């Protein structure tokens, strides 16, 4: 993330990066370390004022800047959604293309044991519901770099939802590759018996579940959706065409989660490929407790995904 932000500030003289504790402290997770020193006033700290931060991003973007705003926890979006949903998402459409809003908002979300109910929510379905917004959810260090770069290069509002559950991942990242086009899912584990569509942290859980199922003779294909808007439906359908079975797994609550959209689209456009009912894995429509014993009983993981795969394959 640090390298993607550095790339953006170095590439675009109109780029700026700001948020709570990002400049002098270098970000709560160190993602913006050194940027203030390197880029001066284009990287700055703000008061704890999410509405003002996001709204200023809209106004600056309309006046030719390329702002990247950090919302420290995705839950904090909820005090300031007006500026995202009513303002940023409307700029290009309502002006008939006469104004643009090249605004990137990076945030992180995760249900981790010990985190309270207001630091644990998953908002991708909210943003995906709003035309005019793009939503990326990286699951690897390389994607964290690539998707953020693609988001910043986009001339429309893009929300990048990272997951702090994966901040400790270690991997070599290629920094000088070409800029990726926006959108596009990826098959991260091939398999012919069932398609598992997931994103963010649960991609790793889905791969672990698939490895477990391989010992039982079931080969699951795992797709990392990477972007929920735009949705790469072709990637889902082409896999489904081969496997005939679909599991959608995410950390957000099941009802109204983005998995519902994937399932509905797969059912309507891939109905004739389906050999079994579509299974959805998610938080079982509940609030999120801080206590690890309770949290782990609810948050989906490799076991819940493996169970869903078994049900789907067995039916």
């Amino acid at each position: 993330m640090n390298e993607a932000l550095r790339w953006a500030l170095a590439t675009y003289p109109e780029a700026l990066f700001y948020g709570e504790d990002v400049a002098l402290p270098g970000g709560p997770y160190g993602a913006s370390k050194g940027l203030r020193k390197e880029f001066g006033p284009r990287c700055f700290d703000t008061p704890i004022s999410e509405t003002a931060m996001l709204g200023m991003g809209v106004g600056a973007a309309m006046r030719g800047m390329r702002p990247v705003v950090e919302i420290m926890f995705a839950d904090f979006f909820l005090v300031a959604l007006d500026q995202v949903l009513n303002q940023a998402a409307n700029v290009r459409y309502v002006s008939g293309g006469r104004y643009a809003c090249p605004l990137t908002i990076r945030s992180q979300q995760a249900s981790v044991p010990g985190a309270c109910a207001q630091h644990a929510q998953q908002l991708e379905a909210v943003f995906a519901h709003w035309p005019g917004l793009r939503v990326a959810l990286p699951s690897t260090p390389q994607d964290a770099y690539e998707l953020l770069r693609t988001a910043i290069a986009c001339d429309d509002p893009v929300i990048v939802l990272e997951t702090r559950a994966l901040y400790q991942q270690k991997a070599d990242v290629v920094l000088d590759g070409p800029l990726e086009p926006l959108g596009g899912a990826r098959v991260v584990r091939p398999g012919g018996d069932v398609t598992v569509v997931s994103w963010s942290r649960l991609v790793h859980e889905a791969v672990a579940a698939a490895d477990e199922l391989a010992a039982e003779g079931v080969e699951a294909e795992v797709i990392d959706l990477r972007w929920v808007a735009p949705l790469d439906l072709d990637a889902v359908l082409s896999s489904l065409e081969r496997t005939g079975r679909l599991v959608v797994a995410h950390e957000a609550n099941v009802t109204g989660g983005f998995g519902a959209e994937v399932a509905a689209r797969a059912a309507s456009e891939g109905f004739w490929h389906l050999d079994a009912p579509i299974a959805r894995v998610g938080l079982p429509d509940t609030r999120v407790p801080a206590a690890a014993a309770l949290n782990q009983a609810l948050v989906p993981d490799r076991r819940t995904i493996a169970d869903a795969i078994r049900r789907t394959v067995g039916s």
Partner: protein
Amino acid sequence: MPAAPLDTYRDLLVIRRFEERLVALKAEGLIQGSMHLCNGQEAIPVGACRALEARDALTATYRGHGWSIARGLPLAQLVAEIMGRDSALCGGRGGSAYHSSAAHGFLGENSIVGAGMPIAAGAALAASLRGDGSVSLCSIGDGAMNQGAVHETLNIAAVMRLPLVVVVENNVYSELTPIRDMIATETLVERAAAYGMPGTAVDGNEADEVEAAVAAAVARARAGEGPSLVEAHTERLVGHYDLDPQHYRPAGEVERAAEREPLARLRARLDAGEVERVEAEVASLLDAAVAEAQQVPFPDPATARDHLSA
């Protein structure tokens, strides 16, 4: 520099008669949807916009026709936009309450109370980072002063010394409720000190007074000294929206306001013959604008999904 009184009268009259035309067009079924008229408040946008330059940014509220006109948006295109035609402003997508004009630095009206404030501050942020000397003017109503977005923005703009000028049009009512019942202080302008910025209260029915206060705030902003707040007192001669029955207003209030409104005041200082001549001039200007607007085609339904993304 204050304009000649007759010029001010003409500028105010264009806005008043423009909105009267809109009401007539709506009665003919040529405009759909609510309109939030600024009858009585015209001196604020007229005075304030005289203090701006072309390079400056502006945001307004859903009661924004006066600001659009004072900022120089073409009248015919504005009528066309409000009629849902394919205007050069937003192609009919913004309408009465949410149009903008990129060609005029007009970032737009806003139908969410107070939401234009952080956007205006963002324009000021852009100006400040580029060091281009432009300023950003944000017009809000009295009710917006009770919104979180406004509080957050006044603070951050002051902290960052952004070139932002906030004009609060205090027209007595926050939508249908008197502002005095919604705040515990005597005035709104006294809050400026708490944010660490200068605040000035003016008679919003005097364009020259508004212009002077806004010009001082603009000069301060351009000099890098940060934001200012101007509270302009005025009164609505009409409802919150065009069909508002205004049951909540005490008897005689509108009549008393009509004696103090900017056009009536100026008219008393002008030659009756000149007033009549300006009236005719504005009428023919608006005849032409409405006729031209009616020549603007309606947007092609096949384009309804265009411009969602680049």
